[in-house]
């Protein structure tokens, strides 16, 4: 299956700071998604972004499919941004492969 590498594994931010999370893929990128897992375990869709750039409020994402990576930007972070961020990609067998996540803690 696809190898998905996320960095950094852990991140601690002061409220109001900006951050960049990264996903690298071992194979082609065609159906990339970013998720946020809140402290209760729910996985929330952030972006479906196989290529290009999308923005949603303080969050934006960029995927460079030709170089097999994607970036998630969080600006002006808030305590409610805390949780684990996952990226995932679909392989040819219709299976999504997830990275091991970036655990973000935003402190007031």
């Amino acid at each position, binding site marked *: 299956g696809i190898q998905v590498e996320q960095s950094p594994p852990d991140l601690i931010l002061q409220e109001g700071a900006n951050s960049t999370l990264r996903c690298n893929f071992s194979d082609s990128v065609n*159906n990339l998604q970013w998720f946020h897992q809140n402290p209760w375990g729910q996985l929330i869709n952030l972006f*479906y972004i196989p290529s290009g750039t999308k923005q949603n409020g303080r969050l934006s994402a960029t995927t460079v499919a030709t170089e097999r990576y994607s970036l998630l930007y969080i600006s002006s972070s808030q305590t409610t941004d805390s949780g684990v961020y*996952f990226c*995932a990609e679909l392989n040819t067998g*219709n*299976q*999504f492969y997830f990275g*091991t*996540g970036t655990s973000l803690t935003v402190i007031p």
Partner: protein
Amino acid sequence: DVKVTQSSRYLVKRTGEKVFLECVQDMDHENMFWYRQDPGLGLRLIYFSYDVKMKEKGDIPEGYSVSREKKERFSLILESASTNQTSMYLCASSWLPSYEQYFGPGTRLTVT
């Protein structure tokens, strides 16, 4: 909004019991998935289904079976629960052609 619901948020079962976890989606999605999530191991695919009565094994199907009799419902069955099946179970659905996945709230299963 897409809604994926799971039958229980928390479940405690005894070793050897038969366990049913149910997932229902309300958006007529073709694809449905069952994952388990464990610390340090991330999300791993157990089974998925791309149509009614169709199923495909994921990466870790051993000890599990699934049932999809109706398009909106996908059940995960632990035939004889074991302590190593204590985990968070997440259901997801997606539609063609985008494959964008939507997750349910998860079921934390403890097997004692």
